[in-house]
């Protein structure tokens, strides 16, 4: 097996197989990652980058945010029946 492409590694990260027909792909990819230090290093760097992206904060909205939104839009809903 050749080295894994960046695309294959990204697919593997998201658990999507490259080709619907190739169900053995995930297994082959995993085996290659176990055996090949080069690809493993690339995969680890990919994981690290995506972990950092995951940590980007999203400001919280309180539990009654939905009620606030409703108050702001309620009077503007009339247009549908025009």
């Amino acid at each position: 097996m050749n080295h894994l492409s960046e695309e294959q590694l990204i697919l593997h990260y998201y658990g999507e197989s490259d080709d619907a027909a190739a169900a053995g792909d995930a297994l082959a990819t995993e085996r290659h990652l176990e055996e090949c230090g080069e690809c493993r290093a690339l995969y680890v760097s990919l994981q690290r980058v995506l972990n950092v992206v995951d940590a980007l904060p999203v400001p919280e909205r309180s539990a009654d945010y939905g009620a606030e939104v409703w108050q702001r839009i309620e009077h503007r809903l009339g247009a549908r029946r025009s």
Partner: protein
Amino acid sequence: MDCNDLGLVTRARAGGTDAFRVLVERYSRPLFRLAYRMTGNQQDAEDVVQDSFLRAYKQLARFDERASFGTWLYRIAVNCSLDLVRSRKRRNELMAPEDSQMDDPILSLPARDPSPDRIAMSGEVRDRVAEAMTDLSASERTAFVLRHFEGMCIEDVSRVLGCQPGAAKHSVFRAVQKLRRALEPLVSAAR
């Protein structure tokens, strides 16, 4: 009120604003998170949430009951976000041609309720991640946000984007590739 989306949509279509209100209360917070990931800006995200519900209400008659209301609403929110980002870009280009990222408020965000991850993330790292996200194209950013943060499958991502699954997959690739190029030096330096 305990009722599934479809039942609520049916009642809202018949003019039941109470039913629509339940949908608004149910989806406002997830929609805000999506809109924030898409726009990188709290005020814009707030606007997107409101505009999305207004658009959804107007288009309720066009909703296909075999589809998921959530996915349909997300599609509307993504489109609202893209419209807003586009108009902001145009505005910025008119005002400051070379400096369109200057006023990205994500850079000055106070996290209200910091989780351990947020504490661990230094301001500099956060800025770089936010910047890398703004450097993605509209379709890359959308595909990435939906696949990565919302955990949607490629099929659903392509439905939201209105493109073929192959194209959606490709947008996810390009997004991750760009993020990796931009952020790799940062993560390897940190360890």
